[in-house]
């Protein structure tokens, strides 16, 4: 299933990429494919912007605005609940 704005903030710098394949390994939705020692975004629409690729990229070639995709958390932060933290209080 797909949501709205999936992979909207995902950016891959092909120059910095060394083709190690960690992004392909850690991505839960198979967004990346590594071909000829370079990663490429093959399925942007499947990206849930979890940030696993960015965290595991040794050369900092990936940028993504990661965060919890939860309306309850957004509403909580709009109401000033939990301060700056976007949380739905579900643990």
């Amino acid at each position, binding site marked *: 299933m797909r949501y*709205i704005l999936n992979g909207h903030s995902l950016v891959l710098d092909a120059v910095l990429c060394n083709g190690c394949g960690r992004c392909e390994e850690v991505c839960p939705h198979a967004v990346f494919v590594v071909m000829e020692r370079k990663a490429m975004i093959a399925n942007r629409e499947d990206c849930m912007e979890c940030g696993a690729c960015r965290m595991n990229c040794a050369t900092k070639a990936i940028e993504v605005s990661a965060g919890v995709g939860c309306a309850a958390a*957004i509403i909580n932060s709009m109401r000033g609940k939990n301060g700056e933290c976007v949380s739905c209080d579900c643990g």
Partner: protein
Amino acid sequence: MEIVGQFKLALVALVVLAILDVIRHHRLTPHLATDFLPFVAAILTGGLLVPVLLPWLPFRYFALKGMVAGVLLAAILLVLLPMGLTEGVGVVLLVVAITSYIAMMFTGSTTFTTQAGAKLEVRRALPPILVSAAAGTVLRITATFV
């Protein structure tokens, strides 16, 4: 969790409906049960039916998925329950607002929603949900006095 979370809403609705019942009939009557039914049905539809039918409900916005389920439920309620025009419109607006809101809360329970998407959805869906809920409440209360 979403059903338990809406328990407070159901309790408030029950108290308000009980007051309206007493105002209209000068005592509590069995009408209260049928008056309360749309609220229970809306909470169960939004909290149970929507997540079960999630892949088959149209639209990517969860609030719209909830709205579709709410409109279907409202149509069933209008057929089953005897309601006047004001009460009927009020109940439809309230039911759709409740199912839509609860459906939107399920964005946090999936593995494919994004924060940017959830922010956009809240920004676009919350105002019409609140307007629908407010208008529905006013009409439902007004229906007691006409």
